[in-house]
């Protein structure tokens, strides 16, 4: 029962519209110092306007999911109370797909994605059994690069085995990986193998110089980029990575392809923060020397660029990270900002199937949702139709989990409907897993904007 305030304890002289600080005000250390990140300013900025909730694709279809406002600021506050020690992270945090729409939507700068990542990490650390099927399934999915390395060693065998119905049955019943989806094919030659065969950085320098001559740029122009290709365009869609290389060389850029691991996106989404940190440390150390020398870092996957630009600095403190982070760009964004890509495309003609474009959430969060549509508007030979602002629903590893498959498809329904109504019968997106979902729901082949640029300017 709460105590009643006796009238005599009320300060009669208190005047709410007059200054009242400075006299008897003493700052109080409310929370003890510890090693966790102080998210209080973020929680305090929340005005409960619910903009985050109305941007959440999961809460719109899953009645069980309490939404980002709860997962972020509200849950954080609960943990700061006297009973906070006993309060454990609610397991609904694992139903968040990490699309990060709430984070970008918040008008008050509440770091929702950071709060969710921290909460999810804590949940996996303290609440999830390390012997459970879910834990190992999630770790397997989050560490896709490890499986992909094995798969591309024997691509034809892996492609045949992974989509064998007996194997799919085992995946579903033993691991909890849905058998509804077909695994993407591994390439018979990885991008890095192609890059090495082609002559690596030396060949790229040669190509860049030829382009500079054509463009009238000085031969030693300061145009150098380090390519973060990520896992998918290395192991599964090397054609996207090759298009990146050719497009940048066309504009006179020398490319290097440094050592790299997974960007960490699937690990954040599964609360595997130490796995993510391990890979982030390799990536930052590998790219920071190059950034020091004047290189910019370029990604072709919008989730990779999102991780390096936003999630790394929110979650990790690694030497050289800030410089790497502020020098990282998405590939088309970079050419649009620093080269006359728009002008070149407006003068070009391309032979390409018309495209139904879906803007991935992580691209949207970087302000890139209109880029492809507006860029190709003036390009003759291809029509690009936007299939709406909904989330595709797969969110990386989320839609691969047997228990999330239905939610994933419900979220995707709006996009599937729009794809069905749109004229084009080929898809376009920057995100590898959105492309899996688009293909899964429509049967269309899915391309990347870099491939359209390549077809327009080079082929």
């Amino acid at each position, binding site marked *: 029962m709460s105590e009643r305030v006796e009238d005599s304890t009320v300060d009669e002289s208190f005047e709410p*519209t007059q200054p009242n600080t400075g006299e008897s005000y003493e700052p109080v250390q409310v929370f003890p110092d510890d090693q966790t990140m102080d998210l209080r300013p973020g929680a305090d900025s929340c005005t409960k306007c619910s*903009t985050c909730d*109305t941007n959440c694709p999961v809460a*719109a279809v899953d*009645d*069980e999911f309490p939404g980002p406002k709860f997962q972020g600021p509200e849950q954080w506050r609960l943990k700061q109370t006297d009973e906070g020690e006993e309060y454990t992270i609610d397991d609904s945090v694992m139903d968040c797909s990490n699309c990060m729409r709430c984070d970008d939507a918040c*008008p008050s700068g509440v770091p929702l994605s950071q709060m969710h990542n921290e909460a999810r990490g804590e949940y996996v650390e303290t609440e999830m059994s390390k012997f459970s099927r879910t834990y190992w399934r999630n770790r397997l999915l989050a560490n896709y690069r490890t499986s992909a390395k094995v798969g591309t060693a024997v691509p034809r065998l892996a492609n045949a085995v992974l989509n064998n119905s007996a194997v799919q049955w085992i995946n579903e019943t033993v691991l909890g990986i849905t058998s509804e989806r077909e695994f993407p094919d591994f390439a018979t030659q990885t991008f890095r193998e192609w890059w090495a065969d082609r002559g690596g950085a030396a060949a790229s320098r040669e190509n860049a110089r030829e382009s500079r001559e054509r463009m009238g740029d000085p031969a030693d122009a300061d145009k150098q980029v380090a390519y973060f290709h990520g896992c998918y365009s290395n192991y599964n869609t090397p054609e996207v990575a090759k298009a990146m290389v050719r497009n940048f060389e066309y504009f006179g850029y020398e490319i290097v392809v440094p050592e790299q691991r997974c960007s960490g996106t699937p690990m954040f989404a599964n609360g595997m923060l130490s796995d993510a940190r391990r890979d982030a440390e390799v990536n930052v150390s590998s790219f920071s020397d190059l950034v020091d020398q004047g290189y910019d870092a370029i990604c072709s996957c919008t989730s990779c660029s999102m991780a390096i*630009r936003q999630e790394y600095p929110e979650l990790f403190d690694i030497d050289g990270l800030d410089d790497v982070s502020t020098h990282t760009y998405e590939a088309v964004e970079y050419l649009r900002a620093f080269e006359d890509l728009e002008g070149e495309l407006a003068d070009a003609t391309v032979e390409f199937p018309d495209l139904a474009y879906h803007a991935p959430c992580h691209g949207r969060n*970087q302000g890139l949702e209109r880029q492809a549509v507006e860029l190709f508007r003036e390009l003759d030979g291809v029509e690009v139709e*936007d299939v709406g602002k909904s989330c595709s629903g797969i969110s990386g590893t989320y839609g691969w989990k047997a228990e999330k498959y239905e939610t994933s498809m419900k979220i995707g329904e709006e996009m599937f409907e729009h794809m069905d109504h749109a004229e084009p019968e080929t898809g376009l997106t920057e995100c590898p897993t959105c492309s899996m979902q688009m293909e899964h729901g429509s049967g269309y082949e899915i391309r990347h904007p870099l491939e359209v640029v390549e077809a327009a300017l080079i082929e």
Partner: protein
Amino acid sequence: MAIESDVLVVGGGLAGLTSALSAAQAGAHVRLVSYKQSSMRQASGLVDLLGYVGDDAVVDPYDAMDRLHDEHPYRLVGTQTVKEGMALFDDVVDGYSGSHTDTNALLPTHGGTVKPTARYPRSAMEGIASDNRDMLLVGFDTLVDFDAPLAAAHLEAAGAPFAADGVQIPFPGDVRPDAKVTHYAKMLDQDSEVAVSGRKTSAREALAERVEPHLEGHERVGFPAILGDDNTTTVRSTLADALGAAVFEVPMGPPSLPGLRLEDRLYTALDEYGASFEMGNPVIDHESGDAIDHVVVEHTGAPVPYSADQFILATGGLVSKGVTSNRAGVREPVFDCHIPHPGDRYDWFEDGVFDDHEFARFGVDVGPDLRPRDSSGEIEFSNLRAAGATLGGYDFAAEKSGSGVSIATGYEAGRLATEEIA
């Protein structure tokens, strides 16, 4: 090199969108950059022009504009310009009513008050308060922002010319107590399967069945504004057919689906005009002399220059952070334009909540050309204009003039900017 355009609009709310539409319609290559989603999603979706002058409710907003002070944005741009701005709005926005007359319509709010407004979504039309058909308001137990019996009682007490009754029912399918408005809308949009007393049925049908016993001869039924998002017309007509009564939405507080739908319509129109827009990255700096050469947009941490011939500032007011304040003073954060305000912050407000507060009128100082002026009355930048709530000199909350000022000044700023480049 920089990302280039003829006209760069900073801000993606009603004023920014109208500026961009106006400039694009006049033939300029327009780019709009917006840091965050607009405050339209917090607004009712009603488009007010002028509801009150002082304590007097306004019948004809255009007539009443003469009674505003000389520096009011409506007086600066003139009544004819306001009319042209509204014509642009009517031209590009489908699904709105009210353009048939100059006089204000009266719409019920979710609190049961009656609000004078100039344009309203067609979904709210059957709820108009000057109509004498009896009204049933339906609330949902799990949607606490709308108490239907209270709203109905309030309407009757306010002297509405009809009988109003309210009923609270559970939304079919046992939704969670704090379900999001988007969840209700999605269920109705997709007519999802719901379980009612152990029987599977569709959301729309189940909802109509729950309302039916309470209908008792009421000719129109009002629901909180959650009747779909993409398919709202179909949701409404399905319910109306099943109930044999007119169906309408009562505009709600934040987060508001009618506000979201209006935002969507305006962005769709902007796309159709061939304009460019992007959302999510802030303008953090600018390079300027007498004129602005370019602004710097921060792309997730990386600075990218955006140049243009003309710039329009439409970042909103105190709510949208287009005007900010701290103990030291009041600022406009993008171009640091001068904002007139008393030096002593205890003069910024009055003691009563609904008093005539000074802060409500804080904003940049402009003349009829809408160019922000510095503290000595000189033009800040020759190629910068401001529109909407960033402007000072009016109190949109008290006057019910927010949307109208955004549309009128946005239209004029876009038109004047394009004239300069022609």
